[in-house]
Each structure stands twice: as structure tokens, then as C-alpha cells.
């Protein structure tokens, strides 16, 4: 290695050291560009899944939420004005059962009893209302769910709140198609036309509104509408509804439907029964 080679090698090494230093400094100062998209939740599912966009994110911790308590401004008087007035609604369930029912309903409202879970009492206990006019004239009574840690900043305690909003606030079109396919595959085998096959009833299209429970069982099945009913097949209209309803009742509870897509999805929908293969 002659002198020139040593010089070149030294320059190269020095250059790399400088380059490394520059890159290291640039990494320290580098900030990734701000994201223009909110983080998304992704659910892996082979059949139906939430739409992979726009999740609803809780922005504020629950402790800072201070819902108002107390009777609403337009609350009805508790004292019945006439005998036809509805009886007061029963109080919410108490933590401990009352030892004995009262012999007669209390004539005056007790607002604090209607909010048994309030952790803090209102600063001013609401006066007992004497009647509708008096209640309407009084300023609106307010209370608060604020806890002792209000305005103390974020604590190390685990939040007791739960975000009740669905993780995806919108059921997408593809989800709807997937759910429809899932349901159709389960109900189709139960659609038995029996005696009506081959009659003029085959032109009657029956739409049944279905409401489901979360376990896939049917809460209600009511006739929404029927199309194609005319003078020659009117005699079959009731039967077409019967056997359409029977089809979905027989093949329920539905299985394998994604719970996340219950609300706004398969909780409440129309099922359209078209007996003819040719529509």
C-alpha cells in the first residue's frame, strides 16, 4: 500500500464517518409526516366483517363527562290530576329489595330515588314538587355524576368507563351482501311451497319484516307487503305468507352471523320470498 492508497483509504473512511454522522443526526430530527387517516380497526373474517374504515373513537375520558341528573324540565307531575292519569312508573330496581311494598303509591315524587346510582348528591337537593304548575315554574334541577377526581387530571387509575359505541359505526355494502348470502344459505332449504307449487300463487312475492335477537333467534316476523296478488291468486295470499314465515322460523336461529354487524345489519331487515325461479 503506497502513500496515495493510504490517503485514499483515509479519505474514504473519513467520508463514511461523516456520512454516518449526518444520517444519524437526520434520523434524530426526522419526524414522520402526520397521518392523514385515522387508525383503523381491522377484523379478519372469511365471511362478513366490518367495513375497514372510519372507526368511532372515544376522544374524551369518561371521568370528564358530567351528565345532568334530576327530573327533566318537562317531567310530569307525580300527583295524579285525574283518575285517568297513568299510574307512576315503578322505580328502577334497587340494590336491595324493599322489605315490603308500600300500601299506597307515594303521592309526591322523589327524584333522588330515581337516580339511585348517582355517586355524588346534587349540591342542592331538589325540593319536593307539589304539583305540575309548581314544578314547571321552578328552575330546572340539575345534578352531576362528577366524581371526586373531577378536574384533577388524568389519574393512574384505570378508567371505569366503557365506550359503548360500536367499533364500526357503519355497515358497509359488502358486509350487507355477505350477511345476505349467509342468511340466504340457511333459509333457502326451508322454503317449501308444498301444495302451492305450480299454481297461480307462484307470482306472489311476499316480503316479511324480520327482527332478530342477538342469539340469532327471531323476535318478530310480520308481513310487510305482497306483490303480484290478483283476482286469480288472491286465495293463496295468506298461504304464501304462512309458508314464507314458516321457512325462516324453521331455519332459525340463524348461525354464524357476526355480532359486530347486528346493529344496523341483521337486527332488523326484510326477507323477500319469490316462489318462481324466474322472478
Amino acid at each position: 500500500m503506497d502513500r496515495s492508497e493510504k490517503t485514499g483509504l483515509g479519505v474514504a473512511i473519513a467520508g463514511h464517518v461523516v456520512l454516518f454522522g449526518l444520517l444519524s443526526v437526520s434520523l434524530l430530527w426526522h419526524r414522520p409526516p402526520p397521518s392523514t387517516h385515522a387508525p383503523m380497526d381491522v377484523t379478519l373474517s372469511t365471511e362478513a366483517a366490518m367495513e375497514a374504515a372510519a372507526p368511532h373513537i372515544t376522544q374524551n375520558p369518561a371521568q370528564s363527562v358530567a351528565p345532568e341528573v334530576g327530573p327533566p324540565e318537562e317531567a310530569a307531575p307525580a300527583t295524579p290530576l285525574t283518575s285517568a292519569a297513568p299510574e307512576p312508573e315503578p322505580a328502577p330496581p334497587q340494590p336491595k329489595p324493599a322489605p315490603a311494598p308500600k300500601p299506597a303509591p307515594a303521592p309526591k315524587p322523589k327524584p333522588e330515588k330515581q337516580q339511585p346510582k348517582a355517586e355524588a348528591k346534587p349540591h342542592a337537593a331538589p325540593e319536593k314538587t307539589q304539583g305540575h304548575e309548581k314544578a314547571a315554574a321552578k328552575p330546572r334541577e340539575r345534578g352531576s355524576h362528577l366524581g371526586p377526581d373531577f378536574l384533577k387530571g388524568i389519574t393512574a387509575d384505570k378508567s371505569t368507563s366503557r365506550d359503548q359505541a360500536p367499533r364500526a359505526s357503519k355497515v358497509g355494502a359488502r358486509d350487507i351482501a355477505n350477511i345476505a348470502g349467509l342468511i340466504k344459505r340457511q333459509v333457502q332449504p326451508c322454503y317449501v311451497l308444498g301444495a302451492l307449487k305450480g299454481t297461480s300463487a307462484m307470482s306472489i312475492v311476499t316480503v316479511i319484516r324480520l327482527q332478530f335477537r342477538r342469539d340469532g333467534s327471531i323476535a318478530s316476523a310480520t308481513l310487510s307487503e305482497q306483490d303480484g296478488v290478483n283476482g286469480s291468486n288472491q286465495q293463496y295470499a295468506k298461504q304464501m305468507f304462512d309458508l314464507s314465515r314458516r321457512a325462516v322460523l324453521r331455519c332459525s336461529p340463524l348461525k354464524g352471523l357476526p355480532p359486530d354487524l347486528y346493529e344496523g345489519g341483521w337486527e332488523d331487515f326484510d326477507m323477500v320470498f319469490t316462489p318462481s325461479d324466474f322472478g
Partner: protein
Amino acid sequence: MRFATLWMLAGLIGLATPAIAQDATMPPSSAPQAAPGQQSGRLRVDITGGIGAPTPIAIPPMPTTAVTNTPAGPTDQLGQKLAGVITDDLRNSGLFSPVASNRLRAVTVPEVTAPAFDYWSSTGAQVLVEGYVRANGDGSLTVGCYLYDVYARTELTRQGFVVRPADWRRAAHKCADTVYTRLTGEGPYFDSRVVYVSETGPKAHRIKRLAIMDQDGANHRFLTNGQSIVLTPRFAPNRQSIVYMSYVGKQPAIYIYDIGTGRQRLLVRGDRTTFAPRFSPDGRYVLFSMAIGGNTDIYRIPAAGGTPQKLTNSPGIDTGGSYSPDGSRIVFESDRSGTQQIYVMNADGSNQHRISFGGGRYATPVWSPKGDLIAFTHIGSTFQIGVMSPDGGNQKLLTDGWQDEGPTWSPNGRVIMFFRTTQGGSGKSDLWSVDKTGVAERRIPTPLDGSDPAWGPLRP
């Protein structure tokens, strides 16, 4: 060199790192696309093209409120027989599939109005028939009949029937009719009777007697003694009379037989050959054919007798007239075009026009009591029963025997009875029925051979 290489590699990684981080924050490349056929935002499920299988139905024996001896037997045994007749009726319609008897369990009287739906759904039944039998103080029977939707857990209909013990089968038929009507949307037909020609003896010397029976073959009895041949019997709308052709001596003529008195009377006076009679829907007239001078035409005569009115006037044979249910039109067969074909005309004989154009020959047209179809015998290489619309469209052949002919409609226009002659020299014939959709073909049991059935109206 090795040292330098490592540093260069580290530099390259350092340069590449921001790029990787950038990729991780990339948004999805495309949004989900709406599937075709889905309305935006709301779920809608389309179920298309159902199955035509018979409906599973459970019909357990009917309990009795108190076991009582009646002329028809103890009421507890009657409850079993009633369920049996209902089961046979519904099974024979071809539209229902009764649950096997070994899967049925006894029910109590209180259970009749509060069925154990969970149990019955486990048997596969979709609908359930329950009922009870009670012997009344006046000697009559009360039969209660309840129909339930097993899955909807609802009562669909109920009926009660008070009958004489001897008519217990009619109560069962009425219950079956109640069930059938509610589930199919069709009219009832089980409580009806059939008159037909009972045949026995060698082909060359057949004895042909008029016979009557329930539509299921029960309560069979002969009306004539066989001394003279009878052909083509037809019920009157009032169910009390039968019009038919008979050879008294060697002259064929039309007679009316009164079921109540057992008497018969000649309808058309004279020495002409008259045949193919049939009542009008109101029972006031009888259509028939009469041959005069080698030309056969269709006539109308008051059922009480009188002067015949000629309705057709074409050369050749016009015969087999049958009224539409409203009495405004008549379907008949004619060979005026060269072969037997089906024609329709107004009740006064005007506007005669051909409706059969399917090839082959067509005979014995009969208008359905519902008015929507005309049944006929199609004569090609074999004889087949078929149906077509009154305009000649929607033609459909229903049977595939060697020689099926002589269709007659059930009172509700849903089932067709006919007679089938076996191939060969025996000439043996039986009564058969088939649903108008072409399913549920079955033989009707008769003690002897049978031909020329005529289905009577529903009994009150």
C-alpha cells in the same frame, strides 16, 4: 474492506428506514364496493324458487272427553279412526306427508287447545292437526278439529262438527277439508262422492252397473242391478240425481236416476240415439248428443223434460258438451276438421271455435269447476289425460298410462279422476286420480273394475 462494507450497509439501512415507515401509514388502496342487488344501507335477503315437497303434518289420535259406547263404536276408538281417515285424505291428496304413526303420541283433551309444539317440531311436522270426540246426550257426536302451525306456534283454524255416529267418516272428511282448505288455499273436496260404472265379467259380456262411493272408496254401493248396460253417469248439482246413458233393449237412451227413491226416468222421448249427457251448472238443463241421419249434434233439454234445442249444426260428430261453471260457454269435441278436436262456443251455440292445436286427437273435454282449466283425453300413440286453459293455451299432459280417459274434476277443481285400461286383451280398467299439477297419481280402490267416474259436488 470488510469494515467499510459494514458501514455502507448500515448507511443504506438508515436511508431506507423512513421509507418503510412511510409505507406502513398508507391508507387502503380502495374502498369496498357495493355488491350488486343490494340496496344501499339496508339489508335485504332474497329467497327465490321454493321446493315443491309435500308438507309434513302430524295427526295424532283424537282423545275423547269420556269413553262412551256409540253405534259406531267406543269414542276412544273412534278418535283413532277419525285421525286415520284424516291422515289418508291428506296423504292421498299428494300435498301432505303425514308423520309416521310410531312418532305420534297420545294427546289429552286439554292438550288439544294447548299443543306441545316443542315435541311436534321434533317429529319434523310443520303443521299439526288435533281434535277430540265427544258423545252428546242426544246420540250425536261432536268432533272438534284444530289446525296449528308448529313453528309459528299459532292456531290456524278450528272447526267443530256434529254428526250422527253413522256419519263419523264425514266428520273426518270435513276436518280434513278444513285443514286442506286452510293450508292450500283451495276449496274443499274430501267430503264428496263419486258415481262410476262398475264392471265385471269377460270383455265380450261385461256386466256394467252404476255404483256410488265416497271419494276415498268407502261406503261403496251399487245403484243398478246390471241387467242393462249403463254408461257415462254424471252428477246433478243437487247431488240427488244422476244422468246417464243406458241400453234398454238395444236402444241407447238418456235416463235420470234419483238417488233418494232409486227410480229412473227416460229424459228424451223418441227413438233417436241419445248419449253423452251432462247437467248445466244450475241443474236446470241437460246437454246431450243426438244422432239424426248420420249427423250428430249437441242439444239442450230441460232437466224436467221437454223439447230439445239444437246448439250445433255442422256435418260430422259434435258431442261431449260441458258447461263452463258460470254457464255462459260450452266446451265440446267435434271432428268437423277431419279429426276429433276441442271447440268452445257460447251457451246459445254461437261463436264456435277450435282451441286444441297440439297434434293428435282430443276428446272428452270437461270444464273445471273453478273455470280456469279444461281437462281432456289426448289421443296419440296412447291415451293421456291433460289440461289446458279455456283459450287452448298452457296445455299439459298429466298421465302416462296405456289408455287413460274420461276425466272428471273434483268439486274444488284441483284433482282429476279418470279411468285407466290396461294394455292387452283383458280390458281391465280401474279408477285413478291425479292432481292438476301432474303429481299424486293414485288408484282409487273399487271392489270390481271401474270406468267412467263422475265426481259429485261437495256435500253440505
